[in-house]
């Protein structure tokens, strides 16, 4: 749903300028330094990027899902490292609080998340609990007027920057499955919470992830998200559901960037006396890229509109995440192929994107988990 087309056009135009003029020129530097410059983070705060999805009542922009996806399509045209800075505040770092937090918890944290004064992070994954998120081992034991948390969280995006973790732990040791899990709002720094070294990754240099280690970390009772135990897994699933469309939009934006790069290269690079874009096998690759990216764009926006209308889009959102993440992998592969030997060289952005986009098929639900979600929902749909 688009509430005011002209305002949105202006907003997207501003984002496109920011991406083109400020972020794209810094991509190589960010990849080299493995850090986004503080000045750029300040500019992101000034622009209001941290509050894209947070309700206006708490100081955000309250974009509809369709508006958010259109914005992310633009932001996807540059390195994921930039989106990573504010991405957790827009998505997994704020949505748990938003969907299941108490009014007091929302008022305490959402305004600061919206301005980027604090960074939110989502701590679900553990060394032994990835796709099987319900099996997590971190425990939170009731102790006087609070809880004591013990365990290790793994690959936690923005943990080194985070001021607030939405952290999942088992409050009921007698319930080994998802029902024993609760969500906590854990402020950082806090005694008993420490970080592992920053993870070294295949790509997405500049996005920071690390382990979060909890050793007798004491939190007050009002840190329990929503004030009720046992609802943590449901919260996590609701958050990831919304995130699927966001990631699908990011994948599609990146595919569109890669197509632009490949097209520009193919129309200027000469072989056999003419631009390689005039060779039919290169044309086939360009056409396949364009077709698939267009399909993903249509899927994402159609599903976003349905979500804004209040329809249940769980299955379709999984379809979007599954298709768009696999699609951008194929597009990156072809874009690199079009670049030939140059595409294998770090001097060309496509080499970096090729590694960056690999993650999309894994995080926030692997392709295989998406397949299971889609098929199980299909089968459940015809059950008597």
């Amino acid at each position, binding site marked *: 749903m688009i509430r*005011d087309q002209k*305002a949105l056009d*202006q907003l997207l135009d*501003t984002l496109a*300028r920011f991406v083109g003029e400020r972020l794209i020129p810094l991509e190589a530097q960010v990849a080299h330094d493995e850090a986004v410059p503080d000045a750029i983070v300040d500019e992101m705060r*000034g*622009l209001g*990027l941290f*509050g894209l999805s947070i309700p206006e009542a708490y100081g955000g922009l309250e974009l509809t899902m369709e508006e958010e996806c259109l914005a992310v399509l633009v932001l996807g045209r540059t390195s994921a490292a930039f989106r990573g800075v504010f991405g957790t505040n827009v998505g997994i770092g704020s949505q748990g609080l938003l969907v299941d937090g108490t009014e007091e918890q929302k008022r305490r944290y959402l305004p600061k998340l919206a301005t980027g004064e604090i960074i939110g992070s989502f701590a679900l994954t553990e060394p032994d609990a990835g796709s099987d998120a319900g099996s997590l081992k971190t425990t939170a034991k009731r102790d006087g007027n609070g809880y004591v948390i013990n365990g290790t969280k793994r690959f936690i995006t923005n943990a080194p920057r985070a001021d607030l973790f939405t952290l999942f732990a088992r409050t009921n040791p007698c319930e080994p499955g998802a029902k024993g899990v609760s969500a906590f709002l854990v402020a950082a720094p806090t005694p008993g919470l420490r970080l592992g070294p920053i993870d070294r990754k295949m790509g997405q240099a500049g996005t920071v992830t690390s382990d979060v280690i909890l050793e007798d970390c004491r939190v007050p009772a009002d840190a329990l998200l929503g004030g009720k135990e046992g609802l943590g897994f449901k919260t996590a699933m609701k958050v990831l559901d919304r995130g699927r469309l966001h990631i699908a939009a990011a994948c599609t934006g990146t595919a569109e960037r890669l197509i632009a790069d490949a097209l520009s290269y193919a129309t200027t690079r000469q072989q056999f006396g003419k631009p390689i874009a005039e060779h039919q096998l290169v044309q086939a690759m360009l056409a396949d890229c364009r077709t698939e990216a267009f399909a993903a764009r249509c899927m994402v926006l159609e599903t976003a509109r349905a979500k804004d209308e209040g329809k249940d889009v769980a299955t379709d959102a999984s379809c979007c995440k599954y298709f768009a993440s696999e699609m951008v992998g194929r597009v990156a592969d072809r874009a690199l192929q079009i670049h030939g030997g140059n595409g294998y060289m770090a001097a060309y952005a496509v080499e970096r994107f090729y590694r960056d986009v690999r993650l999309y098929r894994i995080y926030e639900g692997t392709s295989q988990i998406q397949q299971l979600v889609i098929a199980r929902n299909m089968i459940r749909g015809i059950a008597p």
Partner: protein
Amino acid sequence: MKVLVAVKRVIDYNVKVRVKADGSGVDLANVKMSMNPFDEIAVEQAIRLKEAGVATEIVAVSLGIEQCQETLRTALAMGADRAIHVHHDGELEPLVVAKLLKAIIATEQPGLVIVGKQAIDDDCNQTGQMLAGLLGWPQGTFVSRLKLENGKALATREVDGGLENVELTLPAILTVDLRLNEPRYASLPNIMKARKKPIEKRTPAELGVDPTPRLKTLKVSEPPKRLAGVKVDSVAALVTKLKQEAGVI
């Protein structure tokens, strides 16, 4: 002090301009339009004056077709307080623009008027100067540095020979150059809020100005394509070519 800025809607600076097939003008169909970059610098300067406590109100003015309101929305999102749109569907020449601005200035009574040194579409570089002439106000053109104190504007002008410092008594007209500042991006919340700021609509007739152009465009054509160069094997051959063929030495 009230500051008035004039902003023009032009083809976006990133767009490759194409001439219409019949040579009657530049093709504007489905072309991205934006605020003239020099006018963005003017708006930014006005906002900085307001942030410094020197300006109290910023009024943005744009003249032309209905869509000029989008350009005004950009100025409002950047930080202008209110806007005036002078609606006219036909061509507007710099002298007409200057006369219309003069009429608006007569009612608005700003202490300072800031405009871009030129628009990137026709590159006329005339409006500011004509406006100063019509008003009989001091003017500082091609301003790259600015300081306001004691009712005076101290402006550094970028001229062919270097930099020139001038002192102007306010009210005055300033036309601003590239190096004066780096315009901010309108923040996303301010873009949303700007939709609610007022835009006053006026027409040339109300302002008592005849907008009829005095000039007629006969033909618009693309510059000739650059020809391929040649390699010379010695300095002597280069000098000979520069003398005899290029005629530059």
